[in-house]
């Protein structure tokens, strides 16, 4: 369907009026970050990819699990509905992958409390960034998997909804059906591929190269920082710790498998003590281990390549494995 006007801004105003917590890209200096906004003016959609991923909306960097005194006093849960506006195909896919992790097996109640009330509004990509490679992982950047999808083609705003929650949200808007020409335009838009990098994943080769000295070579310049994992839309590792001796909170915060402390045991034994082991773990985690769950846990957003201070490139590292 077609919307006349700025759909995303109007959607934000409506969501805020409906009592949603809205996460949208907002401009900071020269770049954009996903964060919670309180008015439609704070959002800015003149971007391709925000610095951080949209996972902050469903899996915040720190959250309180339990408030305690002598014993548990309160277990806070998200009560408001949450909306992510302006998510790209890669981040939208990543939320699906996070669902798999947090909702299969033991159900994570904190994640669930946000996820089951979540509305995602995605934008189709018109351009790719220099390090985008989502297409080679089977994601169509022009057809994101989300509740509501917005595509801006030649000045026309196409809006569509695939899910129930998305359809009912759209009922509040004045939309008209596409005419035949427009349907054709949209169809063509969705089938056109964007020019971007490609990753070649050879699972058999990965399996054979696990003990290869290649990984030491790749990791030689790795700094063991958390940029790649903290910006990654599918990384889900976290840490739990208590803040406050007599009275306080049990907090869950993001953690990174690249930090040597991540796996350090109290006995001083560390299963992944060397940085090349940790980096290899991250690569295998994305492309080999998680296959048992049925997916690659990489969506090709390219953030880890853009912002790696050492210039480590997951596309090159995986494609050229030996």
């Amino acid at each position: 369907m077609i919307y006349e006007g700025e759909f995303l801004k109007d959607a934000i105003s409506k969501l805020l009026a409906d009592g949603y917590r809205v996460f949208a890209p907002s401009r900071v200096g020269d770049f954009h970050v996903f964060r919670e906004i309180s008015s439609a003016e704070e959002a800015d959609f003149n971007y391709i990819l925000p610095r951080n991923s949209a996972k902050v909306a469903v899996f915040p960097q720190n959250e309180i699990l339990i408030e305690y005194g002598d014993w548990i006093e309160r277990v806070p849960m998200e009560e408001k509905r949450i909306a992510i506006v302006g998510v790209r195909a890669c981040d939208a896919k990543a939320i699906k992958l996070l669902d798999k992790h947090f909702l299969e097996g033991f159900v994570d109640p904190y994640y669930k409390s946000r996820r089951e009330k979540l509305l995602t509004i995605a934008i189709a990509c018109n351009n790719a960034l220099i390090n985008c490679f989502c297409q080679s992982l089977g994601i169509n950047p022009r057809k994101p998997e989300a509740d509501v999808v917005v595509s801006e083609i030649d000045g026309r705003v196409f809006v569509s909804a695939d899910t129930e929650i998305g359809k009912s949200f759209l009922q509040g808007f004045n939309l008209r059906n596409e005419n035949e020409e427009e349907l054709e335009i949209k169809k063509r838009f969705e089938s056109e591929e964007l020019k971007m990098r490609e990753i070649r994943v050879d699972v058999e080769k990965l399996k054979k190269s696990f003990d290869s000295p290649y990984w030491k070579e790749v990791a030689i310049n790795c700094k063991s920082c958390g940029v790649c994992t903290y910006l990654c839309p599918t990384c889900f590792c976290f840490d739990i710790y208590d803040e406050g001796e007599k009275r306080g909170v049990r907090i869950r915060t993001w953690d990174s498998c690249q930090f040597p402390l991540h796996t350090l045991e109290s006995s001083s034994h560390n299963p992944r003590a060397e940085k090349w082991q940790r980096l290899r773990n991250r690569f295998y985690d994305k492309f080999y281990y998680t296959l048992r769950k049925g997916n690659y846990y990489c969506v090709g957003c390219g953030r880890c390549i853009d912002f790696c201070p050492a210039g480590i490139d997951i596309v090159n590292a995986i494609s050229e494995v030996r």
Partner: protein
Amino acid sequence: MENPYVPYKAQITEVKDEVKGARPIKTFRIKLVDRDRFDYKSGQGCLVSVFGRGESWFTIANSPTRPDLEFSVLKTGKVTAKLHEMKPGDIVGIRGPLGRAFPLEDWKGMNIVTIGGGIGQTPLRSIYQYVIDKEKDYGDLMIIYGARTSRDLVYKDELFKLIEDGYNVQLSIDNPEKDWKYFVGFVPDNVKRLKPNPKDTIAITCGPPIMIKITLNVLRELGFREDQIYTTLERRMKCGLGKCGKCRIESYYVCKDGPVFNYAELSAMLEKV
């Protein structure tokens, strides 16, 4: 829906000193306060939480056929140091039972050999208690256990009692001591000496990594197949639910898909443990 991150309230009812000295071990008997004990199986563990300090994973040290829950705790860090200060009556939190248990049901009719070293005896104790309590269902039981010195042996009283009662308990210490009547040497050497028969036998080993490694070689020399050998792994754990990613080995979470693994599974992994 129950929140798996929220612990049950539990009370310490008994504290027993197992080992004293610089690396003390205490065994805590714990009773749930607001509810009955949950069902669990040998090999499973719990996250014991002390609010203000954190949570730690401990394997349940007694068999489900015995009352209450027992945990043996080696003093190593923040949580365990606090636990060691605790007395009967103090409140702790328990989350569990977590993880995959030993397939004791599948082992019916088989002979059981437990090979333990140091604090690694904990999960094995749960097994031999279970096997003793259900003696009719199992074949012969052999308990092989060793520690650095006689003072470092955990569950001493219980083991000596078992010897008195005629069970096949083989103890060892690393260096000779006065008044020591049993084997002197490392645990794998003791296994080599005792030569358990691999026919219809399950061997379960747990202890320091180096001991496990050598024991595995010894067992395979004796003719044990990989799927006849079980062990438990230890990793840093936080959530216990297979979410936080700390205890992950490949796509397995030690807290959820372990801690019990058989050797065939372990040798199929890329990352050697």
